[in-house]
């Protein structure tokens, strides 16, 4: 369920938040990805290697992601920007796993912390039961049982939603790759 929701949020964000304007840094990341993509398409591995090496401001990992995602297709800016969405989704899942590692005790990350989690959840599944109204912040717990991963789930869910706003450009998303993997 968590994975599905993260994917849905990621995809919705991509379509809704991606701005029409491409700013300076975004263009820079895209052009490096394009150069590497072109080299790979031409079977020029040496060229790919050289482009990777030549990037002076950022390590080439970001451009590799752009390259590999575009590789089966014609290069497009939409696909390039979608890399961030993939990072966003992958990042959400990783953070979920990470938080499980960090706080594995029961009730450590109650969904109460971020109350809108419950609200989003309610909006999502249209359940406005009495339990939920009475204990809005523990509704997920009631639904899925004590000690399950719902706490971390909730936390991450809202975290992903909140951070989505910062994923509106590759410029931020480039750092987002980092964040995403966190």
């Amino acid at each position: 369920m968590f994975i599905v929701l993260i994917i849905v949020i990621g995809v919705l964000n991509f379509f809704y938040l991606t701005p029409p304007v491409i700013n300076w840094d975004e263009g820079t990341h895209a052009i490096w990805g394009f150069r590497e993509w072109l080299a790979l398409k031409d079977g020029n591995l040496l060229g790919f290697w050289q482009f990777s090496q030549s990037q002076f401001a950022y390590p080439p990992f970001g451009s590799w992601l752009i390259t590999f995602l575009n590789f089966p297709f014609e290069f497009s800016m939409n696909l390039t920007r979608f890399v961030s969405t993939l990072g966003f989704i992958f990042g959400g899942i990783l953070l979920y796993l990470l938080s499980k590692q960090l706080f594995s005790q029961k009730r450590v990350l109650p969904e109460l912390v971020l109350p809108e989690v419950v609200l989003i959840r309610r909006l999502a599944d249209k359940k406005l039961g009495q339990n939920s109204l009475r204990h809005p912040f523990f509704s997920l717990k009631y639904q899925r049982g004590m000690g399950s991963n719902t706490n971390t789930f909730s936390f991450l869910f809202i975290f992903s939603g909140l951070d989505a706003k910062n994923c509106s450009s590759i410029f931020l998303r480039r750092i987002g790759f980092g964040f995403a993997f966190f």
Partner: protein
Amino acid sequence: MLLVLTFGLEAMVELVLILFIVIPNLFRYLRHIKILKRVQDDSKIVLKNIILRQAAIFLPLLIFASWWILTPTNKLGWFFDIMRSDWNPVTVGVGDKWQYLLYFVQSIKTSYTFSNVLFLVILIGFLASLTAFNVKKVRVLAVFFILNFTLGTLHWYNLQDRYIYTSIPVLFLLVGFGWSKVLAKIMGPASGLFLIFALLVLKDFTSLPSYLKANATHMLLSPMYNESDYHDTLFNYDFEKWPRGARSGSARQETTEQVIDYILDKIDINKPIEIVGYTAEISPDWVELRMALRRRDKSIKYKVLSSKYNKFLVTVEVKTTSRLYTYDYKRANAWQLEKVKEIEKNYSDKLIEEKDFKELGVKVKIYENYY
């Protein structure tokens, strides 16, 4: 391992973050040595294991970083420049000390949450988590966040929301932990209070779609959605006053993409082109990419003006009334306007094409430019 994987991948993208990996681990390593000196039994084996484990994690990262930084030329100087992030500073000379001091507090409030109520929740949770500072996991996370937050604030001349980006998840983890402590004490009698909280947040939540875009524009200091009422909002945290005017879609609205396409339509893209007057939205790399994509698209027939032009000179003038005449433009690119005027004066007889994008407030002129 997962933690290391995440940090490792992050560091590959943003090598600055190596500091966040290496420094804590260095302390950890030194601490181990100190402990092992006290406990003599099997200390060498334990120490060896620690070193091996650390090496397995960090050696590939070190090799990758060395390869990238040292080849094909030594980029170490540039790398440190990037790490310091003090070139082309955004906030120098535009704020007072309180604005600088509270920048990231405001940032958490406006860019990492969308609701004052939620911000209060985060604040309480964070403070509550600090009461468990003696718990190692909490301590590590708290130090990570506070360190990043403090260093970011000290970097007052170039404050940007994204500079605490990577530590925000840590903050949220702490908030979660803090609230679990608070809840354990007050949950029973205070259930109704939480419902009120939730409803207040829900009220803010209704403006979320509009808020997200306005916030992106606020953070990037640029009309990212072609907002017709764009104005600078640096240090302005009042969402009601952020630009939220007509965005892309209006038939009358001109876009930067149209400007780029106009230029590329009017020149021979296989010949050299020099553009004076780039903006953040009409950037060299983005123009180059659009050119490259056109070259690949065989279905488009390009207009070649005349073979006698060996190269083209293009000026892009952003008028002071334009929405592109932003704080960021004035700070980083407005210096080119003088050059644009100079070209207009000296090359007027070589003007080939021109177009005034009146709605956007941008004037483009294309000159022939002989070798």
